[in-house]
């Protein structure tokens, strides 16, 4: 971990951290066939904080899972840096997730048997990689967990647990951090802490963050908001504020309803 992070490398070459091209995702076959993503093309610039929003069923989680290599894609391409992840086998894909992607889930982010410190360094430990002490300290201080490192997850509050997850996502200096409703289970104070930290990781460390959320307030922390409806990107907003996001979402919802009515 003495080499520059992928984020830094990507910043030099100017290429996006993550890129999707005509991404299609279909679940099931025959009558059960559901098209979740209908040809999504999108770029996530390095060092950018993007929020993906959309009504339930819009395909925002599916998009994130496909971008993160957690789910297979039906057609199209997904590039993580220069790597076409559809071409990777499970072993290589797992290594890619481990070394170049950070994850923050809505809940159940931590292993109950491991301490906060062990949870944070888990991806490095799995890889058998050395922990960059200075970076680790930096991240731990940023999430304000210095005095909680020896605690088990069950001894931490929900907000603290999510901060541990944030630290784990960042400790490998990943090319991109994917956050799936990271504040979905938190109260407003804890939410603000976690979102503030994600924002700072982008501003201060040049981290690329992609966050799925349905909360306009959370989305307002991002540099850019991408709106998804019916498996397609329908809009994009830079420098979002909660009010603007909320308005856009309302129109999307009514759009969905009118679409439903049109059947």
């Amino acid at each position, binding site marked *: 971990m003495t080499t520059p992070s992928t984020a830094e490398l990507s910043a030099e070459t100017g290429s996006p951290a993550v890129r999707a091209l005509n991404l299609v995702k279909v679940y099931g076959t025959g009558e059960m066939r559901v098209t979740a993503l209908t040809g999504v093309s999108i770029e996530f610039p390095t060092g950018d904080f993007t929020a993906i929003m959309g009504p339930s069923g819009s395909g925002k989680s599916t998009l994130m899972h496909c971008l993160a290599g*957690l789910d297979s894609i039906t057609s199209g391409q997904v590039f993580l840096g220069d790597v076409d992840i559809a071409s990777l086998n499970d072993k290589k894909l*797992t290594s890619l997730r481990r070394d170049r992607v950070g994850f923050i*889930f809505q809940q159940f982010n931590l292993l*109950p*048997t491991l301490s906060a410190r062990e949870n944070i360094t888990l991806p490095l430990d799995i890889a058998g990689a050395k922990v960059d002490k200075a970076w680790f300290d930096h991240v731990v201080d940023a999430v304000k967990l210095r005095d909680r490192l020896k605690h088990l997850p069950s001894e931490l509050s929900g907000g603290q647990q999510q901060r541990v997850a944030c630290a784990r996502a960042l400790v490998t200096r990943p090319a991109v951090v994917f956050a799936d409703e990271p504040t979905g289970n938190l109260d407003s104070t804890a939410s603000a802490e976690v979102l503030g930290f994600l924002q700072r990781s982008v501003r201060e460390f040049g981290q690329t963050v992609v966050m799925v959320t349905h909360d306009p307030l959370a989305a307002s922390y991002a540099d850019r908001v991408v709106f998804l409806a019916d498996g397609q990107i329908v809009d994009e907003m830079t420098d979002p504020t909660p009010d603007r996001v909320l308005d856009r979402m309302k129109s999307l919802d009514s759009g969905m309803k009118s679409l439903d009515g049109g059947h």
Partner: protein
Amino acid sequence: MLRTTLRSLFARKFRLVLSALAIVLGVGFVAGTFILTDTLNQTFNNLFADIDKNTSVQVRSASNLPNAAADQSTGSSGGSGRPVPASVLDTVRSVPGVGQAVGTVQSFSVLYERAAPTTSGTPVQPRLLSNDNAPPIGVAYNDSTLSPLHLDSGKPPTGPADIVVDRGTFDQKKLRLGQPVSVQTQTGLHDGTIVGTFTFGASNNLAGATLVAYSLPTAQQLLGLPGQFTNITIAAASGVSQEDLQKRIAAKLPPGLEALTGKQIIKENADSLAKGLGGFSTFIRFFGYIALFVGAFIISNTFSMLIGQRVRELALLRAIGASTRQIRRSVIIEALIVGLVGSTLGLAFGFGVAVLLKAVLGAVGIDLPASGVVFTARTAIVSYLIGTLATVVAAYLPARRAAKVPPVAAMRDMELTPSGGLRNRTALGAAFLVPGVVLILLGLNTITGNGALVAVGAGAAAVFLGVATLSPLISRPVLHVVGAPFAALFGTVGNMSRENARRSPRRTSATAAALMIGLALVSAFSVFGTSIKSSIRDLFGESLKADLIVQGSGFNQQPFSPTVAADVRKLPDVAAVSQLRFTSVDIDGKSQNVQAMNPEGLTDVLNLRRQDGRLDLTGNNMLVSSKVLKDSNWKVGQTVTIRWAETGNTSFRIAGTYQQNQLAGSYLLPLSAFDKNVSTKLDSIVLVKATNGSTLPTLRASVTQVLTPYPNLEVRDQKEYVAENAKQINQILGLITALLAFAILIATFGIVNTLLLSVVERTREIGLLRAVGLQRRQTRVMIRLEAIMIAIYGGLLGLVVGSFFGWALVSAFTKNAEFGSFHYPFTTLIVFLLVSALLGVLAAIIPAWRASRTNVLQAIAAT
């Protein structure tokens, strides 16, 4: 409620199949042994009924001993073994109502091929034709309907060299009519020719034993019964009942003889054989009970885990109004169904076991006539009873816990808190452990007879329950240490495995406890066996002075003709030869095994250390071990009365005592006493001591040469003799270990079960790990290491408990036998631990595969 029970049962069928497998194996064992016993009993009842179908009454000499044991060495059962004078036949024939009466002759007779003399003159060892794992029997041929022998080829024996053999041996050894053979009988070696073959009753021979038949005069002469019969069989004239005829004949018999009805004889024969085989089957059944006991642990654990996973469901049932009783009953019914299904399959498996065991008997020389498998109601009832009972008892505690789930748990994510605190657990564990240890020690040292067996068995079960109860208290620290090398070697993956193994002490302990039982028993027998073997090495060497030991070949080491000793005695290299014979007598009203030896050269062949008096075995003297003297409150010089089966009471004077000696046994009598009081004059062991001028190789060469005509013998030096005894212990240990392997196999299923359930419970964790980059291979390693740790933990518990059992066995044995010392088989026990680890690896195969296939998205999405 019943429908809910059935639904949940089917929803979890795979896990229940795994736990039912434990019941299937256990019940199968028990059922199999019952089926085997019943089949054998019927087989022999039929066989003996057929043999004696025309016998109305049999006359023989009566035994002076109550409950006289059948004399296996001559193949005769019941009676004293003393011959009946030929004149009695005339007496019997004069009794009104006797249709036909035949004198039978039966004794030891080994058959072998007569070797063609070689041109060089060096003798060639003839080929042994008799089955040396069964008593070799020679009889007088007669063609009356009273004889079970039916000539089926050739001609009946008439001349002194005519021999007819059983069809089974004839076919198996590929013999031919006119073939020159020799026989070895009590009177020595005799040459003859095969002139015919016969079947025996409905089969080819008597359960694998080789039968040869001679003409009556030849039989009487060769078998050492001139002018005498072994017994007289009588067929009644028509219209006379067996009982009437028996009474009439008994009234005419001289003293010392008895008359029995054909029915009594058939029953006696069948009982005596069935008793021997029944012992074998009881021995095997014991392992079935162990397997069931182990199975109960697994079932209890499985039910606990399943209930743990169903907390919400149970709470919901409670919330909508199911009573605690209904919940408890639903779990018990679930167990009942599993038990019934398991028992049914177990019964089917038992058939297989019975067939297999029959094959095992055949392999050790007990050939059984083909017959259908006997399946009695008793077998079914016992199988269902124990199988269902074991399951229901095992499920009782989990059922109670299930019933305690509060309705509010339906609304919350709640784990079942273990009932009872630390102190309760300690107290309960101690309540099992302490009485268990006491029972074992009492059973081994104080209680006698069957009670001892029950005490030791119950004690061992209590110790197992106690350790299993206490185990959750120590599992976390012990697993921390056990897991340390794995954590060091495999880093985070190893550490996660260790923490997973440690996280639910009750589950890990219950899983490990099942393995503990098997390993404890295996290691206990290993400790015991090793100690005995080491002691044999030390003590047989010390007991013996003889250079060579001659014994019968074959598994049972059948006795042999006394001409062997006579032939060896003639050799110039030989300084002393001693013949050893054994029999049962009554002393002070108690049955004792006594041993006869030649007085001459006694202290040359045995390293007999004198304690008191003189080691003089001449005349009416006897020698006893100092322990016997002390235990019987006897004094040197006093007279002791010995009651013989054939001749009644005889007095002997205790001339001296010796310190415990492995070959001298407890009571030593002069050979002449046996000659007077025991008709069977066969030696079991012959000890040979070389002259000072001779060397072991020369002595061995000359003894081997003179014994060439005896292919049923083995000549061993001291070292080989000790090794042979050690080998026999190894064989027994091997058999026990093989039988315990079933219990260990069941325990391994238990590990599979626990891990599968754990993997299911930890789906989200595994999904998370896979998401953040744990490779499939690493996932498998993680599960595998957890299995290994649990298995090693179980193995360690087993070794500790087994070492105690072993120690208790050895110390009790040492106290009783006045020999032996504790030897700890470190290497073997380490091997056991490695085997445990290997079982862990095997048990982890399916769960690890399953874990590595966890669908990451579904795992994360699951809430």
